[in-house]
């Protein structure tokens, strides 16, 4: 299974670095007055990397080769779920280094470090997106799964705009959408456990769909 994860990293190697860096800088410089930029780092960037990996798979029709190898479908599916959390780690690491450096040099637009509550929100956010998207992908393949991708992209564009508007119209609200206020320790643990449960159900559903897929 490790080689399936390595394969995705190898396929994207340069893009993985450039895109992660670009989106994180963009999030810190442009979005931070309105939205917590690490949500972009933790949710949007890993999702884009996942889509890029799947696009490569589709372009080469390589699922035919992967499914001709002596590897269980469960492992192929699990590798996909794990890979997105590796993208997440890379992106958060990139974000943290950037914010650390910006704060170190007292730059006017230094990003806000990722808080513990932020990590919970990121995990829940990406967990839910993956839990919905991957079963669709394993059932219908990349092309048909693009419908969900389009919906997600539109939502990702609209929601921050709506959030910005709400903040603008309500000056009594703090300058940012303060996630910390929403997540206490107890709520955080419950949310994490619920997300893990959803991910487990999603994984089993994906395996079930993938075993029925034809290539």
């Amino acid at each position, binding site marked *: 299974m490790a*080689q399936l994860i390595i394969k995705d990293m*190898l*396929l994207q190697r340069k893009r993985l670095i450039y895109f992660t860096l670009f989106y994180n800088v963009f999030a810190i410089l442009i979005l931070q007055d309105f939205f917590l930029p690490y949500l972009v780092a933790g949710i949007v960037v890993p999702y884009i990397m996942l889509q890029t990996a799947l696009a*490569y798979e589709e372009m080469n029709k390589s699922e035919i*080769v992967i*499914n*001709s190898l*002596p590897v269980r479908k469960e492992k192929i599916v699990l590798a996909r779920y794990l890979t997105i959390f590796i993208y997440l780690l890379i992106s958060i690491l990139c974000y943290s280094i950037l914010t650390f450096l910006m704060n170190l040099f007292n730059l006017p637009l230094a990003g806000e470090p990722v808080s513990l509550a932020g990590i919970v929100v990121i995990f829940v956010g990406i967990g839910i997106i993956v839990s919905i998207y991957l079963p669709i992908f394993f059932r219908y393949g990349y092309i048909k799964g693009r419908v969900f991708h389009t919906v997600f992209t539109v939502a990702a564009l609209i929601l921050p705009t709506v959030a910005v508007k709400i903040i603008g119209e309500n000056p009594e609200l703090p300058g940012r959408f303060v996630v910390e206020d929403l997540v206490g320790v107890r709520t955080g643990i419950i949310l994490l456990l619920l997300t893990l449960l959803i991910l487990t159900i999603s994984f089993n559903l994906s395996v079930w769909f993938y075993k029925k897929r034809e290539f």
Partner: protein
Amino acid sequence: MSAILEVDNLRKEYRDFNLNVSFSLERGYLMGFIGPNGAGKSTTIKLIMNLLKKDSGAIKVFGLDNVKNEIEIKQRIGFVYDQNYYYDELTVEEMKGIISRFYADWDDELYRSYLKIFDLDPRKKIKELSKGMQMKFSLIMALSHHAELIIMDEPTSGLDPIVRRELLQILSEILQNENKGILLSTHITSDLDKIADYITFINQGRIVESTTRDFLLENYGVVRGKKELLMQTDKGLLIGVKENEFGFEALVKDKARAREIFGDKIIIDKPTLEDIMYYQIDGKVV
């Protein structure tokens, strides 16, 4: 010796195409799986590889059910498909690094020797390789883990004659080991004229013939004669009759019987595999 591959009453139904095939391949032999485009060759191979789900029937590889024992079987199968499905962004060496870890019996020394034989640069990206070189790379991946059964779906289509000959030479060498078997699907039947031991001919999802190549070439014949002779023949003797202003030509499954009926009034030529395929697909039976 036991069959390395047994396909028994295998069925797969689509809205506009039905497959229903049975055949078997013994260890130590190469079976040419021939038929026109759309005959069901790739569908059969995908069913064997469990890339498609069968509706009914049985597929046994090494005596094991191909679905229940999928992983064990795939450890011992080498596959080559009709086009490159490997990641073209990766180099030959990177792709090998990924693929090799799936196989318990991967032999890096053997892999390096094939790289030399095929003159393949491991530092090149797969997308930088020509179609022939990509096919050679697929072949190296199929051969470097001591596969017992090699399944090839149209591996020679699009290759130049020199590469094709090299590939066929390698396959002949593999069959020196009597424990191995090769299923080679192709519509370029001339590839099989020299190396195939068995021929399975499929058309419109049905097996037309599955027997030894020698049996086919010795018993079948292409006959030519005058049109009047068409009235004298046994029903069903002449296959794929083509009439022209000089007479007719057709295929016969039993050239001894044709000689018995027509005597010296006909000319009987030895057919090629292409003749056997051509007349059976396209032409009327008299």
